[in-house]
């Protein structure tokens, strides 16, 4: 069983590929339809952020276990410009691209755990996970 899989985000089509991979993995772990939609949506937001702000990067999806619980960990990484003001990007409605500004704060609400590591000029890694309850 492949417990780790990833999609390189280079074009818009890779956003579709990443969320399809995410949905399949979520199904395989046994998530219900609502959690599948949450995970798929979160991956779509993270992949689009890479495409819009960093140009290219990677979405990695890992099946994880925490005690008796199974789950999924999504890692979105890029070597883009980094995020200048992390607090600002976590505010609802903040956008620099004309979008809805729902992306990152939305992902945090959709998933159980959410972490951003960002270094200006070096890139950003966002990890978000969800456990099957």
């Amino acid at each position, binding site marked *: 069983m492949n417990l780790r899989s990833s999609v390189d985000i280079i074009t*818009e*089509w890779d*956003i*579709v590929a990443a*969320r*399809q991979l995410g*949905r399949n993995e979520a199904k395989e772990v046994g998530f219900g*339809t*609502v959690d*599948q*939609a*949450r995970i*798929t*949506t979160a991956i*779509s*937001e993270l992949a*689009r952020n890479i495409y819009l702000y960093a140009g290219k990067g990677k979405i990695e999806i890992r099946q994880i276990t925490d005690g008796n619980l199974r789950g999924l960990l999504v890692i979105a990484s890029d070597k883009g410009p980094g995020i200048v003001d992390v607090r600002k990007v976590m505010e*609802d*409605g903040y956008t620099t691209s004309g*979008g*809805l500004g*729902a*992306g990152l*704060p*939305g992902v945090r*609400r*959709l998933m159980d755990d959410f972490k951003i590591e960002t270094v200006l000029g070096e890139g950003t890694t966002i990890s978000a996970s969800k456990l099957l309850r």
Partner: protein
Amino acid sequence: MITRIPILKLRDCLIVSIQWELDDQTALSFQEDLLEKLHTTSARGVVLDLTPIDFIDSFIAKVLGDVINMSGLMGAKVVITGIQPAVAITLIELGIRLENVVTALDLENGLEKLERELED
């Protein structure tokens, strides 16, 4: 590789059923196609059925919200139908409120609602 979404005309309404996952380009070309079709047919209303759609992210939500406002500018009313429970839950958790959007449970209710709105 853009797939075009079929737009059907029934009396003075347009009916659109989105049958598969929307990618960005398909969503954007649908936006243009729908407005063009409104223009050429002089339809006064649109029912947009999303029954098979199992997730909507913020980009697709923005495109849908925009096309509803654009149709409004052209004098047409849009009713969205068939939003699945999982889609409703994730949209709200994502923080997206499609305000002032008329919705109905299914296509049949949507058409009835649209016909009533158009009578007013």
